C-alpha cells in the first residue's frame, strides 16, 4: 500500500492497524485513526469532488466540521450515507466512499462545461429566466432538478437502530480542546456532575495539531484524572448540535460508524437530550480562508488543516508549499511543514508590521518572507501548480507592482480566526464584532452559559488552559457546588507564544490578469465575489437578502468558512461596518444530524405511538378479529369467518344482534367517577340537560358543548349515589373530556366540591345486545332480577356477574335490549369468556365497531366526530330537546348568536337512495339537481352510510341545509366518478322508530 505522502513517524494514527478502503472504486491504504481526508491525502489524492453549480474540481480544504467541499457518499446499499465530510469520516477496513455530483468521474466531469456557462449562471439568474411559455417552468424544472443535490439516499430502509436518552448535569462542557479539558477538570474537582463532549474521535482539540509532546502528555494526564471521577462523563464523536431554551442541549453521539463492518449490538447513533445547569462553551475557533482568484483549487488548504494533517495524521498534504496569511497563526504551520519535509517557497503576509518571534526563524530557514503582499491568484487545472503574488497597497484596496510567480502544489491560507460562536448564538445571545481581532466574539450571555478559550476570541494556549479551568470551577459554583480551595492546574508551556495580530483582509483586490477569474466566498454553493456585487447592485443588500439571493451560507457547512468573508465584502460594498451588516441567524444544528437519530426508537408498528389494548384483546385476536385504530386503541372492527368478506361479516353480525344477541367489547369508552356534594351542579354546567333530579340508580344521556356552542362529546352518565356519578365519554374524547372538566373545576369554579377520577382502565365493558340479552344476563348474574320492571331501561344495578362484582347499565346504542356489564379489567377476559359461553345456546355473536356503527345508524343515533364536525349545534342535530331552558351551561349562550339561529343551517336527516342497493360513499356531497356546471352549490353531505341488512337496503345519515323541513324531498349526490345518485330526505331513525325494542 503506497502512501506516498505518509510521514515515517509521528501522528495519532495507529500504525499497527493498517486499513484498506476504496475511493471511487480504487483501493487505498491508511491506518486506524485516519479520516478519509487524511488517508486520501496520504495517497496523494487531491481531487475529490465537483462543485455544485459550476462542477469545478475541488479538494480538501479543512480538517474538521468546516470542510465545505469534500462531501462524499459513504457505503453502498442499505447503509449508504450521503454528504459525509471526508474530514470527519473515519476509515476502517472495507470502507467504500465515492465522489458525487460528477459524471462519468470526478476527474472527467461532463458538466464541468457549466464553468464556461458561468456568466449566465450568476446570482439570481433563475429568477430572470425560464419564465416563458407559461407552463414552461415545469419543463425547465425537470432539467434543472437533475443537477440538484449532492449524495443519494439509499433505496432500502435503514437497518440500524438509534438510541435516545435524557440526561441532567451541573456543567456541560462543549469541546474537548485544552480549554474544555481544563474546564471539565475544574468543574469535576469542584464536585460537579460534568459532561464533556467533543465531536472528534479524540480529545485534545488544537493540541492535536501541535508538534508538542508536552501538549499531548498534558491531554492524557487530564483525561486520566477526569476518568477517575464517577460523576464525569466523557463523550467522543459527540457533537453538541443544538442549544435551546431552558439550557436544553441536544448532543449527537456517533457510536458505530467508525467501527465499520465489525458487528456490534449498539445503536448507530444516540441523541442525548441534556439539561445542563451551566454550560461551558469551549468550542474553539475556525480558521478563515482568503478570497482571491481561483482560491477553490484543490491544494488550497487552511493552514491549521495543514498542521493537522502533518502532526495529527502524519501526512504531508503537499511537497512544495506557499503560505498566505494575514495573521500569526500560519507561522506555526510553516514550521510544521519545514520540520516535516514540506518545502516552503514563500510566506506571503498581508501585514507590513510583523512581530512574530518565528519571523526570523523562518527567514533563516530559507523561506522567502514577503511582507505586505498577497496571493492574487492560484494557477493550475485540477490542482494548484503555482501562485501569483503582488504587493498590497497601504489601504488594502489595490495591488502594487508586478506579479511574482511561485510554483507550489500546496497553498496554505489563513485569513484569521472566527470563534465558533454558533451555540452561543443559538442559545439566544448575540455575538459582537471585535475590531481588534477582526472577528465576531460572544456577547453577553442570554442563558447559563459562558464561552472560553478560542471560542471567546482568546487564541493563546496558555490562557486557554487557565481560563478554562477557572470557567469550569465557577460554572460548578453557579450550579450549586461548594467550591473550596482547589489545586492549580498544571500549566502548558509554549515555546513560540505570540500575540494574535491580524490585518483584516476580506478579499484580495482584483488584478488585471485575475479579474475574469472567480473568487469564491462560499465554496459549497459556488458563491463568488461577483455574485455578491450583483446582489448589492440589484438591491439585495440586507445580509439576509444576500444569503437568500446568492445562497451564501446555505450549504451543509452553513457557511462556517464563507459567511464572515461574505458579510465583510457586503459591508465593504455598502461602505458600512461589519457590525451594522450583522450576521445571519445561527440555527441548529451545528453540523447536520441523522433523521433516524432524531426520531429515536419511536417509529415503526410498535413504537410510533403506544398501542392500547383492552383486557379482552387476546380473545379478539384468537377469534379472528380485524382491528380498527380508534385513537391509540385497537378495537375489533369485525370478525370475518373464513371466506367471508367484510360486508358479509357485518351483515351477519347485524342480523345476529337484531334477531338473537351480539356482544361487543366497549371497554375503550372513557369512564370518569365524579364525586362530591356539587357533582350534580357541576354536571348541569358541562351537560346541556339537567342533572338535578336524576334518581339514584338511573342513567341519562348527556351532550357536551364547547363554549362556541358546538357539540363536543356525548355519553351516558349514571347516578351511583347521592354525590356520586359515573360518566362515560366517547373513546376518542376520554382524555379531552376529563381535562375539560378539571380545567373548569380548577380554574373557574374552584369552590365547587367535586372530584374526578379516570376509571377508563379500571373497567372492562362487555356489552350484550339483542332480544336474548336478558336470558344471557340472567344466566351469568343469577342473583340479579333482570326483569323489565325491576331493572328498567336507563337504570343500572350492582350485581355479581360470573362471580365478579359488576356494575350493569341497561342502556342501548343499538336500539335493542342491551346491558353493559362493567367488571374490573383484570377479570375482563374471564367474564367475557363466561358470558360468551353462556350465550352459545342463544347464538351469541361477537361484533365489532362496524356493526355497532350500522346498528346505531339504523336508529339515527349520532357519533360525535362522524356525524358532527365541530360546526354542528344540538339544534342542528335535531336535539334541541336536550338543551335545558332553565339553566346555563357551557356553550349555551353561543346558540343564540345570529348565525346559530338561521333556519337554513345544515340539519341532521336521513337519506334513502332510490336504488336500495346503492350505498353512498361517506362524505359525499349533496346538491339539488345534478348538473355539469361548476361550481355547483352544495346543500349538505353524507355523514354516515351503510347497507342495512335488517332493512334489506341502504341507509344514510346526512346534514342538509334546512333539511328538517324538507322531508321527502328529492335531492342528489354527485359522486367522484361523476355519477349522480338521486336520494330522498327522510327521518334519521330508520328502525323501530318508537323505540320499543330497547324497552322490552
Amino acid at each position, binding site marked *: 500500500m503506497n502512501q506516498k505522502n505518509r510521514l515515517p513517524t509521528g501522528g495519532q494514527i495507529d500504525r499497527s492497524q493498517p486499513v484498506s478502503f476504496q475511493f471511487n472504486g480504487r483501493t487505498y491504504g491508511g491506518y486506524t485513526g485516519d479520516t478519509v481526508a487524511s488517508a486520501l491525502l496520504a495517497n496523494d489524492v487531491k481531487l475529490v469532488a465537483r462543485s455544485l453549480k459550476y462542477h469545478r474540481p475541488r479538494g480538501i480544504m479543512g480538517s474538521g466540521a468546516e470542510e465545505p467541499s469534500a462531501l462524499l457518499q459513504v457505503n453502498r446499499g442499505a447503509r449508504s450515507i450521503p454528504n459525509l465530510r471526508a474530514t470527519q469520516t473515519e476509515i476502517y477496513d472495507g470502507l467504500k466512499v465515492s465522489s458525487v455530483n460528477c459524471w462519468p468521474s470526478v476527474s472527467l466531469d461532463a458538466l464541468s462545461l457549466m464553468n464556461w456557462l458561468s456568466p449566465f449562471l450568476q446570482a439570481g439568474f433563475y429568477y430572470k429566466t425560464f419564465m416563458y411559455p407559461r407552463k414552461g417552468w415545469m419543463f425547465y424544472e425537470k432539467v434543472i432538478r437533475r443537477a440538484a443535490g449532492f449524495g443519494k439516499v439509499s433505496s432500502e430502509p435503514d437497518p440500524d437502530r438509534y438510541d435516545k436518552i435524557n440526561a441532567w448535569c451541573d456543567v456541560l462542557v462543549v469541546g474537548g480542546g485544552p480549554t474544555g479539558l481544563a474546564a471539565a477538570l475544574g468543574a469535576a474537582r469542584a464536585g460537579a456532575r460534568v459532561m464533556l463532549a467533543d465531536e472528534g474521535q479524540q480529545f485534545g482539540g488544537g493540541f492535536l495539531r501541535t508538534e508538542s509532546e508536552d501538549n499531548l502528555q498534558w491531554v492524557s494526564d487530564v483525561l486520566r484524572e477526569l476518568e477517575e471521577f464517577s460523576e464525569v462523563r466523557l463523550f467522543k464523536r459527540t457533537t453538541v448540535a443544538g442549544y435551546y431554551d431552558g439550557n436544553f442541549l441536544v448532543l449527537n453521539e456517533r457510536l458505530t460508524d467508525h467501527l465499520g463492518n465489525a458487528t456490534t449490538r449498539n445503536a448507530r447513533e444516540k441523541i442525548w437530550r441534556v439539561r445542563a445547569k451551566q454550560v461551558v462553551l469551549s468550542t474553539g475557533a475556525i480558521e478563515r480562508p482568503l478570497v482571491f482568484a481561483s482560491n477553490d483549487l484543490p491544494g488550497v488548504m487552511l493552514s491549521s488543516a495543514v498542521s493537522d494533517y502533518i502532526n495529527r495524521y502524519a501526512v504531508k498534504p503537499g511537497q512544495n508549499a506557499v503560505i498566505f496569511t494575514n495573521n500569526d497563526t500560519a507561522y506555526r504551520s510553516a514550521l510544521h511543514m519545514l520540520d516535516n519535509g514540506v518545502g516552503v517557497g514563500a510566506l506571503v503576509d498581508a501585514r507590513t508590521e510583523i512581530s512574530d518571534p518565528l519571523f526570523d526563524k523562518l527567514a533563516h530557514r530559507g523561506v522567502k518572507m514577503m511582507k505586505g503582499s498577497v496571493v492574487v491568484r492560484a494557477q493550475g487545472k485540477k490542482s494548484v501548480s503555482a501562485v501569483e503574488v503582488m504587493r498590497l497597497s497601504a489601504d488594502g484596496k489595490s495591488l502594487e507592482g508586478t506579479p511574482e510567480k511561485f510554483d507550489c502544489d500546496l497553498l496554505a491560507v489563513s485569513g484569521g480566526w472566527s470563534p465558533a460562536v454558533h451555540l452561543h448564538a443559538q442559545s439566544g445571545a448575540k455575538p459582537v464584532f471585535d475590531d481588534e481581532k477582526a472577528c465576531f466574539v460572544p456577547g453577553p450571555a442570554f442563558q447559563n452559559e459562558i464561552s472560553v478559550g478560542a471560542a471567546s476570541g482568546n487564541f493563546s494556549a496558555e490562557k486557554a488552559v487557565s481560563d478554562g479551568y477557572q470557567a469550569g470551577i465557577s460554572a460548578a459554583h453557579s450550579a450549586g457546588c461548594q467550591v473550596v480551595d482547589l489545586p492549580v492546574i498544571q500549566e502548558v508551556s509554549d515555546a513560540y507564544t505570540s500575540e494574535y495580530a491580524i490585518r483584516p483582509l476580506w478579499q484580495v483586490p482584483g488584478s488585471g490578469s485575475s479579474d475574469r477569474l472567480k473568487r469564491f466566498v462560499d465554496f459549497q454553493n459556488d458563491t463568488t465575489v461577483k455574485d455578491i456585487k450583483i446582489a448589492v447592485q440589484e438591491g439585495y443588500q440586507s445580509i439576509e437578502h444576500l444569503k437568500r439571493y446568492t445562497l451564501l451560507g446555505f450549504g451543509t457547512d452553513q457557511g462556517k468558512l464563507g459567511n464572515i468573508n461574505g458579510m465583510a465584502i457586503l459591508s465593504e460594498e455598502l461602505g458600512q461596518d461589519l457590525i451594522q451588516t450583522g450576521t445571519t441567524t445561527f440555527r441548529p444544528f451545528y453540523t447536520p444530524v441523522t433523521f*433516524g437519530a432524531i426520531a429515536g426508537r419511536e417509529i415503526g408498528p410498535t413504537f410510533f405511538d403506544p398501542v392500547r389494548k383492552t383486557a379482552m384483546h387476546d380473545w379478539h385476536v384468537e377469534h379472528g378479529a380485524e382491528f380498527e385504530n380508534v385513537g391509540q386503541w385497537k378495537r375489533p372492527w369485525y370478525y370475518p369467518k373464513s371466506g367471508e368478506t367484510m360486508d358479509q361479516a357485518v351483515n351477519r353480525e347485524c342480523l345476529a344482534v337484531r334477531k338473537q344477541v351480539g356482544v361487543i367489547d366497549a371497554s375503550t369508552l372513557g369512564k370518569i367517577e365524579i364525586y362530591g356534594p356539587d357533582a350534580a351542579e357541576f354536571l348541569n354546567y358541562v351537560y346541556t340537560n339537567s342533572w338535578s333530579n336524576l334518581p339514584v340508580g338511573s342513567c341519562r344521556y348527556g351532550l357536551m358543548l364547547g363554549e362556541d356552542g358546538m357539540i363536543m362529546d356525548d355519553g351516558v352518565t349514571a347516578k351511583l349515589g347521592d354525590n356520586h356519578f359515573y360518566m362515560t365519554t366517547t373513546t376518542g374524547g376520554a382524555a379531552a373530556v376529563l381535562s375539560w372538566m378539571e380545567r373548569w373545576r380548577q380554574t373557574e369554579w374552584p369552590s365547587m366540591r367535586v372530584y374526578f377520577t379516570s376509571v377508563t382502565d379500571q373497567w372492562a365493558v362487555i356489552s350484550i345486545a339483542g332480544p336474548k340479552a336478558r336470558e344471557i344476563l340472567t344466566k351469568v348474574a343469577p342473583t340479579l332480577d333482570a326483569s323489565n320492571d325491576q331493572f328498567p331501561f336507563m337504570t343500572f344495578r350492582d350485581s355479581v356477574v360470573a362471580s365478579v362484582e359488576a356494575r350493569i347499565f341497561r342502556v342501548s346504542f343499538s336500539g335493542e335490549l342491551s346491558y353493559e356489564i362493567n367488571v374490573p379489567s383484570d377479570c375482563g377476559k374471564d367474564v367475557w369468556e363466561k358470558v360468551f359461553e353462556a350465550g352459545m345456546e342463544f347464538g351469541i355473536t361477537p361484533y365489532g365497531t362496524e356493526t355497532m356503527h350500522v346498528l346505531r345508524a339504523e336508529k339515527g343515533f349520532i357519533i360525535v366526530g362522524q356525524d358532527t364536525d365541530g360546526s354542528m349545534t344540538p339544534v342542528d342535530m335535531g336535539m334541541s330537546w336536550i338543551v335545558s331552558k332553565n339553566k346555563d351551561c357551557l356553550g349555551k349562550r353561543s346558540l343564540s348568536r345570529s348565525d346559530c339561529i338561521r333556519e337554513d343551517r345544515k340539519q341532521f336527516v336521513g337519506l334513502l337512495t332510490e336504488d336500495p342497493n346503492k350505498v353512498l360513499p361517506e362524505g359525499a356531497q349533496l346538491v339539488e339537481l345534478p348538473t355539469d356546471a361548476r361550481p355547483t352549490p352544495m346543500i349538505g353531505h353524507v355523514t354516515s352510510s351503510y347497507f342495512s341488512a335488517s332493512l334489506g337496503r341502504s341507509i344514510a345519515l346526512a346534514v342538509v341545509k334546512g333539511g328538517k323541513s324538507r322531508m321527502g324531498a328529492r335531492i342528489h349526490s354527485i359522486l367522484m366518478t361523476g355519477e349522480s345518485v338521486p336520494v330522498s330526505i327522510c327521518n334519521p331513525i330508520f328502525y323501530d322508530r318508537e323505540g320499543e325494542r330497547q324497552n322490552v
Partner: protein
Amino acid sequence: MKKYSVFTLARHALDRRKSWSRAWRDPSPKTSYDVVIVGGGGHGLATAYYLASEHGINNIAVVEKGWIGGGNTGRNTTIVRSNYLWDEAAHLYEKSLVLWESLSQELNFNVMFSQRGVMNLGHNLQDMRDIYRRSNANMLNGIDSEILTPQQISEIVPIMNTSPYARYPVLGASFQRRGGIARHDAVAWGFARAADKLGVDVIQNCEVTGIRRNNGKVEGVETTRGFIGARKVGVVAAGHSSVIAEMAGIRMPIESHPLQALVSEPIKPILHTVVMSNAVHGYISQSDKGELVIGAGVDSYLGYGQRGSFSTIEGNIAAIVELFPIFSRVRMLRHWGGIVDVCPDACPIISKTSVDGLYFNCGWGTGGFKATPGSGWVFAHTIARDEPHHLNAAFGIDRFVSGALINEHGAAGVAH
C-alpha cells in the same frame, strides 16, 4: 427597469460593463400616501401591487420593520393548493391558485411555481370520510381533485411506506395535481419589483409603532422613521397583527404561535410530489436544490420568538421517517420557526375595522403562503372600494360575533 428575459441575461453575461439595476428602489418615506401597507411580506407586497395594477392607486408605501419577505413568507414550506373544504375558503384559494399559474409572467419574475401535485394522506376511517367529503366538494366547486388508493399512492410516490402493518397505515389520499410549491423569497421579491415599477415605495427597516386616528378615522402611522400620513392603512403583519391592532385599540381573535420547519442536506431528487399527513403530522417536499423541506406542527404556547421546541421537531421527524423509512439516514441541516397568527376557525380575516380607513388582513396562520396573490388581490379590492370583494365577504371580523365561522379545522384537513 429592464425586463428580465433570457436575452437581457445573455447581454449582461456577454457585456461585463453592463450592470443590473435595482429590483426595487430604496426610497425615504414621503410625508403622506394614499395608502400605507404595514408589513412587507408576500401579502403586503401583493396588496400594494394589485392596488396599483388593478385599482390605479399608485401613491402607496409598503413599510416593513425588517427586510421584505423576512416574516413567514421567508420561512414557510411553500405548499400551494386550493383544495379547501368550505366554499368560501375554496373559492378564495382557487382564485389565488389561478393567479399563481401566471404569476411569473405577470410579475416578470420567475417564482418557480412548480405544479407537482399535493397529496393529503388519510390514516383512519374518519380521515377517509373527510377526504371524500373535501374532494367531492372540490370537484363540485370546479377545483381539480382526485382520491387515491394506497396502490395509486405508491405508484406516484414509491418510496412511501404504504404497508398495511404500519402503526397508522396509509388508507388513501386526496390529490390535487395543480398544487405544488414555489420559491418563497422570489414571491416577495417579484411583487416588490413589480410594485416598485408601478410607483410603490417599498420602505424597509421602518417599524410601525402607532396608528394615528382622529374621530374614528385613520390619519397615518407612526414609525421608527417618523410619522407617515395616509388616507387608508392596510395592516398585513401576520404574527404581529395583534400588536398593531392594539395600537389602534382593536381586539383580534388571534393567537400567535411558533410554527417550525426544517430542511435536510441536499440529496439527489427522489421525491417529486408534495406529501402531507395530518394524522402522523408531517409534510414534506423536495426543493429544486435537493433539500427535503419539512414542516412540523405548531407549538402549543404563544411565541413571538421565531423558534419553537425541539420536541416538536422530534415528533415531526419520527412521522417523516415513519412515512419514508429510507430517509432515516438523511441528515437534518437546519430548523427554524415562524410566528403564525392563528384564528379560532383557521381562516383569515380580510376586513374593514371599526376604525374608518383601517383594514386588516391577518389570521392566515399556518397556511397563507398559498394565498399570497389571491389575498393581495381581494385585499386591494377591499381597500380601494372600501368594501369586500365577494370572494372575501365571508372573511369579515364580524363573523366572530355572529358565529358564522368557516371551520376549516378538523374536517378540512387544514394545515399548510
